[in-house]
């Protein structure tokens, strides 16, 4: 069953904050730069929320990091880098009231919100915030997990195309267009384990920026996972469970958060989640080219066989 949630027009926000829904978690984003906040609101329109906030991101935009800011954040280990470039200096606030959510205050340089940069810094902050909120929202800290993948809904079910960067997730989304399915995101998806009412894994779109414009806050049951392999031909190979597990777990976004779980805790959660997913849905390795016709002919054939397996 497809479900589609959208905030009403009075939705989430005051003039200085927006609230975004990531699965069951609501994350508020405040910013002292109204232009940046306005742009974020447009980018994430489908995810605007009026739900109670689980976690808050407070963005403070500066022209340049001060040396004092960097020194203080560095001494606490609160720096997010890309190579040698510092992207974010942050401070986590533990609110004393049990009713208040946690807040992370982030200082960023203005140029990172240059439109040509596509706001990808939020692709770093939102998963961290999601997993941080999961620490308190889920009793064992484990909830649905984010997976590096492209999701396309066809005939009411989602096909997940997964793989590291440059394996073709965005290409698959572009080859899909509007004709071959509904792309909900070409960069990342949120996967929930089966609940008491259903055996199906549910997949939800998330406010993560990929290479295509679609970012939809819709969910659908997971039909299968196709692990992408660049090739000079179009072919589909069913993977055994071990092969699927080894490849899939590398695409699960490790549950890093601002406070820093132990590496063992993170790996353990990834291992358990990957075990669960590979136990429930079939996995395939998809070799493909830019031949759109061959690709969707192969996918159509797969769907027919999945339909037979499911009946």
């Amino acid at each position, binding site marked *: 069953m497809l479900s589609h949630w959208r905030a009403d027009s009075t939705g989430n926000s005051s003039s200085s904050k927006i609230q975004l829904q990531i699965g069951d978690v609501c994350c508020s984003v405040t910013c002292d730069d109204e232009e940046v906040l306005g742009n974020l609101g447009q980018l994430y329109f489908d995810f605007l929320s009026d739900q109670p906030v689980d976690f808050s991101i407070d963005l403070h935009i500066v022209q340049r990091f001060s040396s004092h800011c960097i020194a203080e954040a560095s001494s606490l280990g609160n720096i997010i880098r890309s190579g040698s470039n510092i992207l974010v200096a942050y401070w986590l606030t533990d609110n004393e009231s049990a009713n208040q959510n946690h807040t992370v205050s982030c200082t960023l340089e203005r140029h990172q919100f240059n439109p040509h940069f596509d706001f990808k810094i939020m692709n770093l902050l939102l998963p961290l915030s999601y997993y941080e909120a999961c620490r308190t929202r889920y009793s064992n800290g484990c909830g649905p997990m984010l997976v590096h993948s492209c999701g396309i809904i066809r005939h009411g079910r989602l096909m997940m195309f997964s793989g590291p960067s440059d394996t073709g997730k965005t290409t698959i989304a572009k080859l899909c267009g509007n004709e071959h399915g509904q792309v909900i995101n070409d960069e990342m998806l949120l996967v929930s384990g089966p609940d008491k009412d259903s055996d199906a894994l549910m997949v939800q779109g998330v406010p993560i920026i990929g290479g295509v414009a679609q970012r939809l806050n819709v969910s659908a049951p997971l039909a299968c996972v196709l692990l992408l392999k660049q090739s000079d031909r179009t072919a589909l190979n069913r993977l*055994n*469970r*071990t092969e699927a*597990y080894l490849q899939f*777990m590398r695409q699960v976004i490790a549950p890093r958060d601002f406070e820093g779980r132990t590496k063992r805790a993170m*790996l353990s959660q990834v*291992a358990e989640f990957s075990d669960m997913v590979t136990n429930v849905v079939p996995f395939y390795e998809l070799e493909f080219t830019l031949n759109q016709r061959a690709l969707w002919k192969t996918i159509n054939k797969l769907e027919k066989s999945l339909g037979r397996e499911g009946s």
Partner: protein
Amino acid sequence: METQIVRNEDLVWRRIEDEIVVIGNDGLAVHMLNKSAAYIWEQCDGTKSPDEIAVGLCEHFEVTPEEARADVQATIDKLEGMGLMHKTEGNPVQ
């Protein structure tokens, strides 16, 4: 005192059907243990000596006691060399 073999408990591992996948501390290295190595791995909980594990291997797989002892020793040596387990000196837990 008998030597017991202990898995490195800092490592994350899971049984996937007949095999065991051990994830290295860096989260990148992955070690695959086949059926017999997986059995040996699961037995290395610090309560059994290599000889006791070999007896169990004989019972679970169609191998002679000599083959079992050699297989256990070779597997333990290899996994110990990779930092996945280590030996301890102590009496087996009764």
